[in-house]
Each structure stands twice: as structure tokens, then as C-alpha cells.
């Protein structure tokens, strides 16, 4: 199975997003690199708006991800409540 991944800028806001991702994707690997946090998982990864809001303590729009995003790999599905990545195999 191929890995999907997402990389975020290492800043204050991103840490809440990473915490939400870790909570919802327990098998994902989180790698800290200079100025960047990279998260990988086999086959798929999901970011849930509600989880991020819980971590951040404020309303959050899935599209706000664009501000902290560095790069990603996998087929993207985006809606009001989540963003997910997957490979078809």
C-alpha cells in the first residue's frame, strides 16, 4: 500500500491541526523537520473540521488549511467538514 502524506508549516496554529490529525488517525506517523511537520499514513488520512475546532478552541473552516499547508500527496476529497487523502489501489 502506498503512503499518503501532508506537510504543514511548523507554527502555533499547525500544532492544533496536527493534534487533531493524530487523534483521528492513530496509525499516522508524525515527523518533525526544520520548519515543517510531515504526517504520513498508509492509504488514507483525514482532517476533520470538528476535531480541529476542538483543539483550537474556535470555529475553523477547512479551507483555512491553505494558510499552513506546505504540500500533500494523494487524491484529495474536500467538503465542509473534512479533507481527506487517499490512493486508489
Amino acid at each position, binding site marked *: 500500500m*502506498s503512503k499518503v502524506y501532508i506537510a504543514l508549516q511548523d507554527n502555533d496554529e499547525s500544532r492544533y491541526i496536527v493534534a487533531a490529525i493524530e487523534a483521528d488517525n492513530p496509525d499516522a506517523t508524525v515527523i518533525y523537520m526544520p520548519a515543517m511537520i510531515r504526517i504520513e499514513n498508509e492509504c488514507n488520512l483525514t482532517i476533520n473540521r470538528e476535531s480541529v475546532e476542538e483543539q483550537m478552541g474556535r470555529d475553523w473552516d477547512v479551507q483555512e488549511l491553505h494558510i499552513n499547508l506546505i504540500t500533500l500527496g494523494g487524491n484529495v476529497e474536500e467538503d465542509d467538514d473534512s479533507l481527506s487523502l487517499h490512493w*486508489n489501489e
Partner: protein
Amino acid sequence: MTVKKLNIKDKYRLLTRDLDWDYSYHERKEAFPFEEFEGIKITDWSKWEDPFRLTMDSYWKYQAEKEKKLYAIFDAFSQNNGHLNVSDPRYVNAIKIFLTGVSPLEYQAYQGFAHVGRQLGGVGARVACQMQSLDELRHVQTQIHAMSHYNKFFDGFQEFSHMHDRVWYLSVPKSFFNDARSAGPFEYMIAIGFSFEYVLTNLLFVPFMSGAAHNGDMATVTFGFSAQSDEARHMTLGLEVIKFLLEQHEDNLPIVQKWLDKWFWRGSRLLTIVAMMMDYMLPNKVMSWKEAWEVYFEDAGGALFKDLARYGIRMPKYSETIKKEKEHISHQAWWTFYTHGHATGFHTWIPSDEELDWLSEKYPDTFDKYYRPRWELAKQMEAEGKRFYTKALPQLCTTCQIPMLFTEMDDPTQISYRDTVYEGERYHFCSDGCKDIFEEEPEKYVQSWLPVHQIYQGNCGGPGVEDILSDFYRMNLGNDNLDIKGSPDELRWKAWKNTA
């Protein structure tokens, strides 16, 4: 009236998708004349999926926030003489290559996406391309602004635009993008949107941006991470394009595969200069080119092509050749630039002993056998006061326009020469890949403005090489070129480090 709740997909569709219409008063084909000549068949544009459904108001909002942060850092960088924090003055030569070679490609990308952003028949695809066009303008302009401060303190940045149009090694990136833009809209999308922005993008960004991070270049690393977030949207556009074309009609498969083969090869040739930069120009190393290729192409690319296999797509032609080449190209390229360092707009040098050892460790099968002996000789000659500069001009490959410095992959002691005759003229190539590209579209590649050929034809002034470098290229001789040792860049660096 109860207001219906709209989800993001429906809302975007209502705001954007129905804006276009079937023409009645004029021929729609006249408004969109380039859709058919490539042989690509589109049966239903409404099947286009918008992965990121960004409306313009959201675009402005998020991008403005990114810009505020970015420019605050540019300002801080320049107010605090941030250039003094780079690891070593040699590092700055890597970003001279970036500004003169890569930034103008971002500009061409703005132009290319503006073109397809007008010419494609489907409004969803047009909007995605238009946003990418705007992003690419962002990239070239933020790069110019990032480098603006370096330009004030180092040589080799000041004529980036003029040089990109003329200088021998810069026609490599320039012709790459001219090739893409002169192609039809669908080939452009596969060449740039998919092959470059999806498959190969990490191989451009990781070397430069991580290189910047490891070498104290705050301006470039900040630009890099900020730009990469746009790249996420570009990558999804690229992936959507190829899936869309393959799903629209089975006749599109062989055309798309042919383009993948061509652009993958041209793209990997373009990356030669990046490979060299990564292995030789970063005082603090990130990883070797070989490692980068393995992680970002062999592994990541592997996942991608497995996903696409269900459409009938196979790995690009020549991927096996490139696998072998990863052991060699950086060394062959840097040697060429080192020995032609009198004609480059940046400084060159012999790697330090530690760096030679690092290269031995990273390339256990090739470095000590084929390349270290050259550097030992170069060191010896330098010690004798005979730092070597080649007096001749290199023959260029007609397709990729790189000097003929590549060797046969199965025998690195032999330069790889290929040729073909077209309408009575013989054309020369560095590889089977480049020869195949030429033979597929000879009418295109015979037009190439090959810098060395042009010099010999008397189209670049002269008569001597020095005249061409200073008058035609506008190189500041003795400042921009030659070895780092004794250069004005190095002398200034030493002075700053004593006083600042």
C-alpha cells in the same frame, strides 16, 4: 422561506459552473480554437472535478494572509542584514542559479496558465488554471523580492532577466518552458500541470528550499514554504487533469502516455542543474541527489503510477535510464561548470576534503572510481597556480540544450553521442531520450536557438569569448564569474564577518 443549507460542492457549482453557455450568435469554436488539434477528445466538460473549491473571495483572503507573513519576514531579513547568516558565501551561488534559471520559468508558467486558463472549453478547468496563473505570478514576484536583498550584496543577480534570455546554460530551463508553452493546451497541462508540478516538483523544491533552511537563508526558505502551499493546489490540478483526460475517452491514452514519456525525460534533464546544486553547492548538505531521487521519485512516484495503472498508464519511458543516471549526473554537471567557470554568472570551486568524503560515502559505486581523481588533479593544478578553465565552447544537445557531458550509462568513460539527419542536416543529442523527442517533432526542435551555435554563427557579438560574455551576456567579468577564491563576493564576506 427557509434558507436551504448548501454544502461546499453545491455552492461552488452554483457560483461557478453555470457561468458559461452554448453560443448562438457566433461560432464557439472560434472563441476556443485550440481544443481539437492535438487529437484529444473531450466528451463532457461537466465531468471535471474541482478538488479545491476556492472562490475568489476566499483566495484573496487566504493569499493575503500568506503575503503579510511573507513580506514581514522579507522586511526583517533585510533590516537585519540576514544575508550574513548564511553558512558560507559559496551557498549564495546556488540561489544565483535559482533567480537566473528558475524564477523566469515561474513567469512563463504564469503566461502558460493564463493561456490555457482562457483557451480550455470547460469553466471549471479554466478557473483552476487561472488561479494557478495568478499563483505563478506570485512566485516569480516573491522570488524577485526575496533575492532583492542578496542582489544588493552579492554579484551575479543583477542581470537575471537579460541573462536568462541569452546565456548558454540558461537556455536549458528557458527552452524547456518555451517547449511547453508552444505546445497545445492539453500537452501543456500534462507537461507542466502534471509531469512537472506533480511528479517532479519535489525534486526542485526540496533541494533549493531545504538547502536554504540548512544554510541559514531565511528569505528563501520562507518563500519556499509559502509557495509550497500554492503547490498543493497545483498538484491536485495536475492529478485531476490526467485523470480527466484518461476518463474522457480511451483514444486519449496513447497521446497522454507519449507526452508523459517526453516530459518526464525533458524534466529529468532539466533537473541536472538541481542535482549538481544539491551535491556540490550546499555547504551544509540536505541529502544527496541520489537519495532525493530515490525518495521523491522512485518511492513517491511509484505510488502515483500504481494509482494510474488502472487507466493503462505505465511508468514513463527511460525511467530505468534515469535510475542509473542518478549516480552520475551531478558529478558530470559540476565538473562541466567548474571547468567552464570563466563563462558562468556564478562562482565555482573544488569541493573541500570533507565534501569529497561525503560524496564518496553517498556515491559508493561511482564517485571514487570516476570522479574523485578529477578533483585530485584539479586541486593539484590549483596549488600550482594553474586553476583550469576550458578554452573551447561545448557542443549542446539540440533538444535539452545541455552540453554533451552525459556518458553512456553502462560505460561512464564514454560520452553519450546520438545523432540524426533531418532534411540534409545532422543534429546531435546527448541521449536516446532527447533524440526520440526530436524525431517525434523535428519541425519544432530545428528552431532551437542554441547559444553555442549562435555564438559560432556570429549572432552574439564577439569576436572573442570575453567580448561575448561582457557585451552580449552583460556579465561583470572578474566579479560574476571565475572561482570563489579571490572573488569580490568572498572578499566582501570576509570583511563583513570582521566588522558586523
